[in-house]
């Protein structure tokens, strides 16, 4: 049992710190969506030119090939340097690209991977549907093979950045009467194809980054299918193995900074009774408890890496971490809102008007997206505790 970084890790941290100090843009991400998308691409380009694109990708595919611990160091240094988040590059870097690395053809890899790393291509996800969110295997969007094309009809939901993405990882049902996980196909969809109609879904934060995507006779070359027709479920699941417990690493690391910022806020904000928030016993205690929780999150993260290192695959413990991280984030957002008084309500329908209020609303995205808290509890009950199944 140890928490020792290797000399190599320490040297890497110094290298990251120096590079980030010299390269993190001083201007914030613009509020306007198109400009924001360009900002994400520009940052990805700079990472690429600096040799930091795809830190979790194997070196053979142009990535940096860092270990899980080294990825944690990267996110710690990125948070320290206030570096831009992946934002609209996230699906390409963390999901689409890794899926191609695991299951794509040589031609698919050769075309897409360099474009993802350089920031040229933005990807979005096409998994969830109006009737298939938590229950992903219930998807109904149809794909039928016609000659050398896959013809798609249906609708996807919650497609983040779909309105400026170049490609989509699209999961469709190709066997008409197939049940559940069978008969699905994972295909790369060019978002410029005729028959694709994108409708914005405004979120409660006032921002537009999710969309409904409608498919009417969309003809996708069969060559874009990854892993074979009918293999969609296993292709979709293969990314999970690639993530190696690092999917929420940036959020986990960021929480440690968020708690210190909230403590600093409490030291300078006065309550209705004229006292500083930090002098209020109730607030001080909740802050300290949340600080303990963020410390535990770091320990859980490292414990998770350690398990993966031994078992060589992520286990169901990842669900416990996701549940704990998102619950902590939510509690911290609520406390920050309480401390800031009327300032909490000063919000102009985008994150730049009031980051703290935006984060308060973002907390529901975290507890619902990528497997809601209730789904995580089901996974824990089944796979960690071995309780009898209701389903």
């Amino acid at each position, binding site marked *: *049992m*140890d*928490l*020792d*970084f*290797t000399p190599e*890790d320490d040297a890497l941290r110094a290298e990251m710190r120096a590079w980030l100090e010299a390269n993190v843009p001083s201007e914030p991400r613009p509020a306007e969506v198109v400009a924001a998308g360009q900002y994400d691409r520009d940052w990805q380009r700079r990472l690429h030119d600096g040799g930091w694109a795809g830190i979790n990708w194997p070196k053979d595919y142009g990535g940096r090939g860092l270990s899980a*611990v080294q990825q944690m160091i990267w996110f*710690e240094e990125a948070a320290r340097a206030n570096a831009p988040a992946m934002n609209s590059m996230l699906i390409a870097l963390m999901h689409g690209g890794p899926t191609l690395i695991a299951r794509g053809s040589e031609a698919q890899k050769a075309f897409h991977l360099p474009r993802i790393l350089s920031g040229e291509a933005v990807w979005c996800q096409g998994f969830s549907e109006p009737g298939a969110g938590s229950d992903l295997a219930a998807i109904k969007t149809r794909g039928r093979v016609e000659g050398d094309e896959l013809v798609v009809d249906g609708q996807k939901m919650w497609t983040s950045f779909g309105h400026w993405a170049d490609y989509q990882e699209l999961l469709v049902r190709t066997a008409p009467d197939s049940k559940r996980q069978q008969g699905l196909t994972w295909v790369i969809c060019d978002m410029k194809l005729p028959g694709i109609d994108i409708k914005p879904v405004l979120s409660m934060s006032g921002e537009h980054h999710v969309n409904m995507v409608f498919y009417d006779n969309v003809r996708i070359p069969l060559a874009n299918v990854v892993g074979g027709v009918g293999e969609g479920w296993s292709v979709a699941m293969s990314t999970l193995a690639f993530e190696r417990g690092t999917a929420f690493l940036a959020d986990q690391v960021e929480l*440690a900074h968020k708690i210190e910022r909230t*403590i600093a806020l409490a030291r300078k904000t006065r309550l209705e009774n004229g006292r500083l928030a*930090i002098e209020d016993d109730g607030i*001080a*205690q909740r*802050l*300290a*408890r949340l*600080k*303990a*929780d963020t*410390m*535990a*999150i*770091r*320990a*859980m993260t*490292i*414990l998770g*890496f*350690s*398990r993966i*290192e*031994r078992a060589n695959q992520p286990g169901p*413990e990842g669900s*416990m*971490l996701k*549940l*704990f991280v998102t619950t902590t984030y939510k509690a911290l957002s609520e406390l920050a809102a309480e401390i800031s008084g009327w300032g909490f309500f000063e919000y102009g329908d985008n994150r730049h008007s009031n980051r703290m209020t935006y984060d308060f609303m973002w907390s529901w995205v975290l507890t619902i997206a990528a497997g809601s808290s*209730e789904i*995580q*509890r*089901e996974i*824990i*009950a089944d796979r*960690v*505790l*071995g*309780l*009898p*199944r*209701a389903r």
Partner: protein
Amino acid sequence: MDLLPGAEEEEIARAAADYLAGELPVTRCHRPDAELLSAEKRAEIAGLGWFGLSLPEAQGGVGLSAVDDIMLFIEAGRFLAPLGLLTSALAARVAAEAGDEDLRSVTLSGGAQVALGLAAPQDEGLLRLFDWKGASLVLLLGADRASLHGFDAAAVTPVDCLDKTISMGTIGADALTLRAEGGGLAALTGTLNAAAMLVGMAEAVLAMIVDYAKIRETFGRPIGAYQAVRHPCADMAVRCEAARAQLYAAAVSLRDGKADAAAQIAAAKLLANQAAVRNADWNIQLHGGIAVTAEHDAHLYMKRANLLARLFGAERTLLHGLLDAKLAA
């Protein structure tokens, strides 16, 4: 970097669990006035090296570390082992730090039962004692100073304790005679190992309800198939996971002399308190009526968890220290 226990650390836990299951099973806690840690048992345990596990060999200890300590005390908690297991180990450390070889040898060999003393604000001029029956020494733990005292059992006013496995009482602070003094390491070690015991208790009650949820049926199904039971169980598992992970991090930071060891230990105790107290609560709730009966084990864990959550570092003190703490990378 590897936060999982290694093979030798796992072996300490396994051996401890084996011994405790055979010699100090939880069923003993139901016996009225059962002697919980007899002189013979103390000597036997001393022979296993438990009282000096993390004490340097030069001081008569086994020479292992804080990490080995927690592996032992997690199991001690799981079996609701007597507090004396922990107080004896801390007493040996204080005696060793004070350079009192006789006292060190007595405590290491299990020759003395050690009570824990605590200055409680509501007990003006008095010290509150825990596990004092049969004890010949009182251990007081302060942030910078720990001390061992002799006392006269006749001067103790016995007070019935909610936790029937613990003897409680009060004594005038002036009725103690100082025997040895040490530094702040004993208190830190005490907080860490109490956290370990609480983690073991949190895991024990989770195992208890999971076993029951698989066999107890209502409306024709095992209750473990209902989400109203499954989801609280999942939350119990998360509390265990978070508390155990932070406990590991805290033990490593103490062993390696990290600057933030005190903060890591404070966080570990806070998480362990929550895990043990909340899990003991849910264990009773999800069992239903059977768990409020005296013959069931559930209340033993509830009572001990609430007691231990207040000993070896009060919540308020731990929370206060944590706010300002700077964390090492």
